[in-house]
């Protein structure tokens, strides 16, 4: 595997992991829990 291919693979994995974590934020129940906990700071 060339250096360029390795770099592309590393960037691809990094982006996939970031999108997977972002997906955690979009789950409805997670979002509601998180939002409630954030909002609780300001009641």
């Amino acid at each position, binding site marked *: 595997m060339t250096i360029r291919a390795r770099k592309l693979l590393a960037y691809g994995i990094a982006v996939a992991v970031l999108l997977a974590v972002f997906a*955690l934020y979009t789950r409805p129940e997670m979002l509601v829990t998180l939002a409630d906990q*954030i*909002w609780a700071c300001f009641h």
Partner: protein
Amino acid sequence: MTSTSPQKLSLVQVLACGAAIVTLSMGVRHGFGLWLQPITQAQHWTRENFSLAIAIQNLAWGFFGIFAGIIADRFGAFRVLVGGAVLYAAGLAGMALSTTPLTFALTAGILIGAAQAGTTYAVVYGIIGRQIDPARRSWAMGVAAAAGSFGQFLMVPVEGLLISGFGWQQALLTLSIAVLLITPLAFGLREPGFAGGAAPQRDQSVMQALREAFKYPSFQLLMAGYFVCGFQVVFIGVHMPSYLKDKGLSPQVASYALALIGLFNVFGTYIAGTLGQRLARRKILAAIYFGRSIAIAVFLWAPLSPMSVYIFASVMGFLWLSTVPPTNATVAQIFGVAHLSMLGGFVFFSHQIGSFMGVWLGGYLYDRTGSYDIVWYIAIALGLFAAIVNLPVRETPIVRPVPQGA
């Protein structure tokens, strides 16, 4: 300076272990706000009890960072990282088991603040500075900063799941075990130059290095810029959800905004570190601070909508911790790496004073005026100020007089 040993750790080893440590140490602390509601309800404490402990933690992080840096430069970062991991575990367990606001302030505030000082950027950057060639140093600092940003992004939902799955107390105890992983990772960062407990020989004592740095105008300017970074980032991170609520936006908008800040922060820190290898870092820093002021101004004056919030969060996320690699790489370039952790600790202390001011002034002026307008304007003005003060920073290595008889 002679602190570098001829034998160096490999680039991959330094980056893998350093990034994993910073991911853990920065990530775990980032979700502490999620414990506000469950802890205050379970213990019948006020919100002020919790907030005071977190404020103490931020100041302790900055204060102990100086001493963690001195110890890391003198005895090696390995010892500081291991000590920091133990303090972190003890602090998290203390958070879970505290029954009074005082013990909570001592554990969540002092212990975890000291632990963060020993396990985050200043200490890890000292290793990167000593072990990685200047030609790749800024990039490597960008990788480590991106790892810390990723930790923050990752751990908020993970900690939310831990709290809802196991309860707030078990979640803290689980994290207290998880942070002990820093100890085996620290073995990968044992620097050959510090073997046997003997400190490497240096050209300057701690006091000489301090006197030199504090008399050097560029160091003062970098500290001033970093103060602004702390002020803006923590003011926005803490008070933006409240601001959005006042403006009638739904809670989900605030959650997505924080997610976008976390996501773009990872890209921003990495790109800033990479650019620091090719461009003048003072210009990168000036552009970041100027960009923040523009972003805040446009956000305030444009019609507010969920989309405007998401765009603002993405732009601010991109500029969020992107100041970290160029600031620390510049300190390393000017003063060398012999006292890098200590000098990084002082610069970070300035950041934490700014953080404290951002949180405190945000709350104080909101209570007095009923809005955040004044603090937003202060944040814009400070961004312009930081952009201006970073421009004259001299990045070239400082010229030291040659000792007599040398």
